[in-house]
């Protein structure tokens, strides 16, 4: 499990594949429409590649913040009965989902 290097510029985003990963059902017509739109967005972000960032430390965050943590103490959560209020369907305090087949 080592990270793959990020793709160097250029590579097209496969809309159909990304939609599948996101469990979105797109029609062929939608895929054809979104493909160039997504391309435009990526191109916009790609402008950053024109900058020289060789002296800039890579970061995952835009703001300089670190070590936000909490003590290992318990806090009252939701009761099962309140939690179930957001469940489309529930049974015996379980969230009911379509049958899981592995």
């Amino acid at each position, binding site marked *: *499990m*080592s*990270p793959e290097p990020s793709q160097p510029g250029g590579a097209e985003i496969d809309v159909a594949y990304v939609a599948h*990963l996101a*469990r979105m059902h797109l029609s062929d017509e939608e895929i054809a429409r979104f493909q160039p739109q997504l391309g435009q967005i990526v191109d916009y972000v790609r402008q950053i590649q024109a900058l020289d960032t060789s002296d800039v430390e890579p970061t*995952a*965050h835009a703001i300089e*913040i*670190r*070590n*936000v*943590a*909490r*003590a*290992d*103490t*318990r*806090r*009252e*959560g*939701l*009761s*099962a009965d309140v*939690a*179930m209020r*957001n469940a489309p*369907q529930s*049974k*015996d*305090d*379980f*969230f*009911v*989902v*379509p*049958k*899981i087949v*592995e």
Partner: protein
Amino acid sequence: MSNYEPVIGLETHVQLGTSSKMFCGCATDFAAAPNSQVCPVCLGYPGSLPVPNEVAVEYTVRAGLMLGCDINLYSKFDRKSYFYPDMPKNYQITQYDMPLCLAGAVEIDLNGDSRVVRLRRIHLEEDTGKNVHFARTSGVDFNRAGTPLMEIVTEPDIYSADEAMAYLQALKQLMLYAGVSECNLEEGNFRCDVNCSVRPVGSDALGVKTELKNLNTFKGIHAALSFEIDRQLNLAASGAEIHQETRRWDVDAGITATMRTKEDAHDYRYFPDPDLAPIVLAREQVDRWRDELPEAPRARRVRMIEQYGIPAYDAGVLVAEKAIADFYEEAAQSSPNPKAVSNWVMTEMLRLLSERDMQIAEAHITPAALAELVGLVDDKTLNSNSAREVFGILFQDGGRAADIVEARGLTQVSDEGLLDQFVDQAIADNPDSAGDYRDGKTKALQFLMGQVMRLSKGKANPQSVQELLRSKLGG
């Protein structure tokens, strides 16, 4: 035809012994009522924000130090995206390219040899929920979702099911010593994914691997792995292809079966979690934790053999559990007879603990009381039967050994005059046995000894009784 050998790597999920979850204050109690330990964070409600549990970070680093890992002073959390009903956010918070710990090793012992299994990394992540199955639907309980887990990943350094077992046992012991997990297998604190492949003996390359998911008993891991190794060796021997896939262990059938093939492998699209700030550890803090590490069990065993003059076998049994070894050492240090202390701990103590399914901390006997008891046997105040009785009382109720001996009148009778009387009476009451002994049936002596012990209410000094009987019967 070339010979093939299995190559195995393990990913072990060890649940950290924190009081609250990884990113929220919900409880982590086992077997609570469904969805009674949940909140907007671990249910993945929009707008909720995770905040890392600092003790989970500390425990992961302590575990890494115990295993000789390099600690990354800068690490971060990432999102691993996939859809599954037991994961409410549709991503799991984990650590991808900057885990807390890298490298490290676990020394294993097998058939008298020892070798090293190298580790690749340890990262910190959150557990998922648990599914139950109804007739036409499934149910999800999110109590477990968000529980902190360490994933401890080995290099492909394991070559048999027995070695995998030895590794897991050593790892469990080290985690218990480090005090970072209860390591309770029944409660799912210790779960394994197994990667297995075969290759021609002598080859350095790795073959196509299969992955066995979510094995949660040592017995299950051993059985599943033994089956999978045989399956792959047979395929390789017959020249058939092994497919990269995820397989499931079917306990009832005793086989592994295809669960997912490579074609529907996940694309997890890892990326840094914008909700979570990086963790930056101070070197001094890590050094302090390193200084606080307990002595590792292997080193402890060697030291105990030397320090107390006990056999290697004894030392191995005693260090198996840290609390037992701690108890033993405290008692042995205040006794001139550490071997006798070891005998008591290994036999009576472990027997009573296992019979009553108790932890040593729950027993009332103190190390000082055991050392005292050993002294009372050594100075012949107590015979071994009475000593066992006293041990049982100390175990159950605590107190001082001498007080119990006095209260129960258990002091051994070594008084020659009194013993003389008992021996004479036993011989007079059992002329047949006395005759048998004189005729050379040495077994009769045991019977007569029993009679004397009975007359003394178990308090006679057995050695003196034996000598007296022999001399009176002309043995």
